[in-house]
């Protein structure tokens, strides 16, 4: 394995991690502030991707498509919170899981009803297509590099929002003690709607960004949702910083595992067995990572004690 290949794989891992962060940040905020397990978070990712694909097909503009994904997912999230989620805060987690699972089915079949069963087309903008030459002779797709940049900007913006703004103070207070900040006169139901819409918008944004290099189809959100849950468990539930660290860890582990494990096994096994064993072990790698983190820190890396 050459240095160039390894460097490229590290970039790939970083890009994957940054993408997961956009999903996990919303999920962990919603869980941290409202104590709600939202299985339908993946549906918001799908809503964002479909909104972007439909807008791009109608207008041809990728920027408008991104704006549409933010707006559509935030609107879908706010509506979801007002109509369904609001009734679930006081219920136990099993009720929340059941209700939000129902939402997954409703969103999936609703999307199929609107857009049909066949995948939609969403392409990356011309300005970002093709590879770019980096130092040390690395050729890397421009678009993936842009995703890394955008993800890090969003992470920094989230940091500013949470540490420097009034709403950030309310969010942090909400995580600490829900009853108390309600007693202090903060309109808690409005705060919940805002946080939910914010998390939804991030998920939708991720869906649109990723939709351009993957397939925009019904059910695209669920595999990502599972990984996002792994991320927030590793990072510590409720911690945005934990979500960032967890996402990058998961992204790197998954990508490097896929690239390196089969090669590592091939040094002492016959190639075909190494390929299949390496592939099987690579697909378990992030769960092994999660188990290891939980053994050392049962509440995750940055979880509240």
């Amino acid at each position: 394995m050459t240095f160039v290949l390894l460097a490229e794989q590290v970039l790939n891992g970083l890009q994957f991690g940054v993408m997961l962060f956009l999903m996990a940040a919303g999920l962990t905020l919603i869980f941290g502030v409202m104590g709600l397990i939202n299985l339908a978070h993946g549906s918001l990712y799908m809503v964002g991707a479909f909104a972007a694909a439909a807008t791009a097909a109608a207008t041809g503009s990728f920027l408008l498509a991104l704006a549409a994904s933010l707006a559509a997912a935030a609107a879908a999230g706010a509506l979801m919170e007002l109509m369904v989620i609001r009734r679930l805060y006081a219920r136990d987690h099993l009720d929340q899981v059941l209700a939000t699972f129902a939402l997954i089915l409703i969103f999936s079949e609703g999307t199929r009803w609107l857009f049909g069963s066949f995948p939609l087309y969403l392409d990356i903008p011309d300005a970002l297509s093709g590879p770019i030459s980096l130092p040390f002779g690395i050729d890397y797709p421009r678009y993936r590099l842009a995703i890394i940049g955008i993800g890090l900007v969003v992470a920094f913006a989230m940091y500013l929002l949470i540490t420097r703004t009034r709403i950030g103070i309310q969010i942090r207070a909400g995580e600490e003690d829900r009853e108390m900040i309600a007693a202090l006169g903060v309109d808690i139901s409005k705060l919940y709607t805002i946080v939910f819409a914010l998390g939804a918008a991030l998920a939708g944004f991720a869906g649109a960004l990723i939709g351009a290099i993957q397939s925009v189809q019904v059910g695209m959100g669920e595999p990502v949702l599972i990984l996002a849950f792994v991320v927030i468990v590793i990072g510590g539930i409720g911690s945005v910083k934990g979500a960032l660290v967890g996402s990058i860890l998961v992204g790197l582990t998954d990508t490097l595992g896929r690239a390196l494990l089969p090669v590592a096994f091939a040094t002492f096994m016959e190639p075909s067995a190494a390929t299949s064993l390496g592939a099987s072990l690579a697909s378990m790698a992030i769960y092994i990572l999660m188990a290891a983190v939980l053994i050392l820190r049962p509440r995750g890396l940055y979880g509240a004690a």
Partner: protein
Amino acid sequence: MTLKTLIGAAALTALATVAQADVKVGMITTLSGGGAGLGMDVRDGFMLALKQSGRDDIEVIIEDDQRKPDVAVQIADRMIQAEDVDVLTGIIWSNLAMAVVPSATAQGKFYLSPNAGPSALAGKGCHPLYFNVAWQNDNLHEAAGAYANSAGYANSFILAPNYPAGQDALTGYKRFYEGDLAGEIYTKLGQTDYAAEIAQIRASGADSVFFFLPGGMGISFLKQYADAGVDIPVVGPAFSFDQGILQAVGDAALGVVNTSQWSKDLDNPTNAAFVESFEAEYGRLPSLYASQGFDTANLLISAVAAADVSDAAAFQAALEAANFDSTRGDFAFGPNHHPIQDIYVREVIKEGEIYTNKVIGIGLEDHADAYAAECQM
């Protein structure tokens, strides 16, 4: 179940109450979730053939298996025990077929497969009542291997998902391909990001890439492959290039060579009429899955016309005769009830605004599967 199916089912039930059907067909197929496009194409092709035949003695009950083996088994049990169907059909996925077919045929029901063709059902597990109208799973991959030889490729990089059909795919390719392997990767089933694999392909020095990544996996792979700027030619089976997903891949698929037993532009009157009537009926171009559904129904109709389904031996003989006009032109069953047919090499082109395939040659002529010899009926 979608509204359309509901209406369709309701209309069929209404139809059935008017004319008492002689042959009852249970169709178990995937109509919701990620793989729904495939099931809908099979269903629509099947129903189109029935409609064109004008027969009112064949009743079809359609159920959605949600791509879940347990659901498919439940539906099959209900159809066999409560609805007393004569013939089962419709399953898309090999793992579902393995869960349903052996028990259905053991209970004396005919099964006509419009898609899945796992090797286990073609070799030792073959059955007199089981017919595959599409292909044995390995077939299209074998043709891809044969094409790679003729194109002069000598150093292929091959990848497929890590599940039985994925392993069959790489086995099938290697059975015919004579060159060296630059690399061999099993990806996760349902994986959507292929950056790590594409980096390895770029670094491997391969002169060709063979991949089997059906549905959404193929869309993701092709888009990312094109974006990474790797210019090694790609070969694959038709599953990643069918009419339903090509529009979602876009330019990234242009010029890619793929293998299929059917193509929209196959020059025979049955196919021309099928493509035209399918487009008129459903407002979209047919895929290979639709052609398989259409052929399955026409095979059934030909058998119903020749024999009574209650006489199993006669009905089996009528099916074996395969006395119908296939959209593929020549069509015959081998001794294990799997097709002997030409596998074509196609290239993705753009016709106006629509991405579609054009036949550029024959990969394997009158090709039968490798498992027929193991089948003892």
